[in-house]
């Protein structure tokens, strides 16, 4: 029996059976509570929107981890900083038309957050580079708390406002396809994520820097022998992750009123997305983020357990870690030698 269960086909069968059971439960709950396909479509759409940001955060986790082996728990704070800085800069009294001011705010906030990421790497990670991975992870947790405390001092506890990109107004333009509620900002979010993915693909496949990063991820020592500077790659990975987080924060800012402590939730759910990717696959991180977003939204909506929405994401995390720790997507080949 043990041998039977251990085979790949048996595992596959079990997974499919579990998936069918899950879908059946969801359908049953939906039928009982009178939720039509419209409700499910709305939940899925909103879930993909939130999931896109988890995807960006997860991408940041994956990039940093595959190059340096560090799990950077300050990822979520980059999202918060991006959103808050964008809102603050937009509020300044600059003699520019609003559209230009918004572009300036976005560019400036992404640059500043990238600098924060670089500062984090040089100031906190690089000096401790000889220490074990767990030490570095705890350093990033310390960084999270420090960044959040600084945000509290700078901005207080009030929520800020990032204007919607379409109409540069506090309240977004709403489309109503098939009776669903679709904000124009959602289109911006999906477009941005698609653009970011294309840019990353191009970067990793076609540029020397990108290939050097990948080499570092595959085998650090060999990359070093080939003349690639691993500490510079580490710096680059942190800068990229910070930029990704900031872009996510900026583009998601109009959807939610940013507050100083919004980063924690994004960090943890982005971490779930990264775990689903086995911490190595960028595509896996994106898919993991989308799946997490949809699962928690549909799960909370159909069961009525709205207070436990975050619980669903963490149940997924624990299940993945227990049953398939190498990740759901693209983690099978873990040919990494971390120095």
């Amino acid at each position, binding site marked *: 029996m043990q041998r039977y269960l251990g085979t790949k086909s048996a595992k596959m069968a079990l997974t499919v059976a579990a998936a069918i059971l899950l879908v059946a439960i969801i359908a049953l709950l939906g039928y009982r509570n009178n*939720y039509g396909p419209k409700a499910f479509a709305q939940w899925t759409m909103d879930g993909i929107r939130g999931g896109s940001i988890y995807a960006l955060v997860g991408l940041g986790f994956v990039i940093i981890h595959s190059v340096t082996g560090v*799990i950077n728990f300050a990822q979520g704070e980059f999202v918060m900083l991006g959103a808050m800085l964008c809102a603050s800069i937009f509020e300044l009294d600059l003699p520019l038309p609003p559209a230009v001011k918004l572009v300036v705010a976005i560019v400036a906030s992404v640059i500043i957050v990238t600098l924060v990421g670089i500062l984090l790497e040089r100031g906190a990670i690089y000096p401790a580079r000889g220490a074990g991975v767990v030490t570095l992870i705890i350093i990033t947790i310390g960084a999270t708390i420090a960044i959040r405390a600084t945000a509290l001092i700078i901005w207080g506890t009030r929520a800020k406002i990032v204007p919607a990109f379409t109409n540069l107004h506090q309240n977004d333009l709403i489309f109503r396809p098939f009776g669903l509620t679709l904000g124009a900002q959602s289109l911006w979010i999906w477009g941005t994520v698609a653009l970011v993915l294309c840019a990353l693909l191009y970067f990793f496949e076609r540029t020397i820097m990108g290939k050097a990063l990948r080499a570092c991820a595959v085998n650090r020592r060999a990359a070093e022998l080939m003349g690639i500077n691993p500490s510079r790659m580490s710096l680059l990975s942190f800068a990229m992750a910070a930029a990704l987080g900031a872009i996510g924060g900026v583009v998601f800012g109009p959807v939610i009123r940013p*507050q100083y*402590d919004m980063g924690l939730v994004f960090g943890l759910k982005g971490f779930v997305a990264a775990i689903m990717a086995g911490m190595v696959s960028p595509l896996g991180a994106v898919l993991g983020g989308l799946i997490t977003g949809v699962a928690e939204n549909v799960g909370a909506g159909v069961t009525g357990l709205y*207070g436990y929405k975050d619980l669903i994401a963490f149940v997924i995390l624990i299940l993945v870690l227990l049953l398939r720790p190498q990740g759901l997507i693209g983690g099978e080949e873990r040919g990494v030698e971390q120095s």
Partner: protein
Amino acid sequence: MKKIALAALTIFALLAVTISACGTPAPPPTPTSPPAAAPTPVAEATPIPEPVIGTTYKIGFAPAVTGGGSFLGVPERNVAEIIQASLDEAGGVTGPDGVIHEVELIVGDTESNPDVAASLARRYIDEDEVVALVMGSLTPISLAISAVAMEAEVPYVSMASAGVIVKNPDTGEVYHWVFKSPQGNLEVAQWQVERLTAMGAEKVCYMYENTGYGKDCFNNSSAQLTAAGFENVFEGSFERTDSEFPQVPGIEAAGCDVVIIGAIPPGAANAHVAIRTALPELPIMHGHGVCVADFITVGGEPMEGAEMPCSAVIIAEDVPADDPQKEVFMGFKSAYEEYTGEPVSTFGGHGWDALYWVVEALETLPEGLSLAEQRSAIRDYIETNIVDWPGTAGIFTLSPEDHAGLDYTSFTWFIVEDQKFVPFPQEDW
């Protein structure tokens, strides 16, 4: 990978424990403008050759300056600073025997944490030897402090709203040493029942934030509404930092006539915007936690038509001159806005009322009382002499059976129109 998984799980657990145990470390910025002259200074002592200075009275004051309750705690702390400045300017309070006593407000931070609050209260009582406590911006914090105050026999005025702070819900026994200054959620619910009856609504959907305040709102409202014959067809909770609202399709499917939201900004504004965007025709009502200008600014255009019960202090200038609360409103509003440069906060008003009860009681204490006698005298004064007392939250009448002193007529019903709070009198419903 297994090693990473184990490490990640450990870190994750550590993080979860750390987050739940600690509040936010750093305090928010204090307003930089210096305190201006404040209203109602204490009466000058009758001229005597040399003013006799008596013992300094200390009041323990601790709102939730950081953490989830900071939206209430920061205005309350501002009020403490304003009142301390005005007391210092007047030199303190003067007793009936002409002796002048300085008053010192010991200001702390409960960090929105009941354990921190309880130990802070203990410290105030034992080490600082305060004559009274004015603490607790949120209900669970106030309950923790109330236990300490009852045991140490120190008068305690809470700045949180739930009725269970002053009265045991099961036995109906009123806690001897505990009072509260805000209006309660029960009174809010009573107003909501009136409005819903006038609206002709039958089915109600309820959304509340996952905090002590939100749950208390929900408990009170659903009890009152069910007793009045309305049907609660949907109930959903949400967090302050939520960005997605899966409750909205649920509300749509439930088919209710009105949505009631029990939360404070920005959560209340986010939920309102989400519901209003998906369901433009559904009326939305709130509790009294949203009576601040921030609520409308954070929400924007979808806030039009939101209804809620508030104290009329938010429109102090438009209150008729013969209203007994007009003077208090104008005094509080102008002092607050001058000190902080921000619009008036009704939460600060709860601190204002509470502190002035204690200060008024202090004015009746002769010199030479022991600490226990002072505490007892203050408690007795507040219980018996705060009658028809105009405050920012209403006209208080405290009694041995009622340590809250307000009924639902202390509220005015408001509606948001043109991005402002506009009174919505019953005749126009």
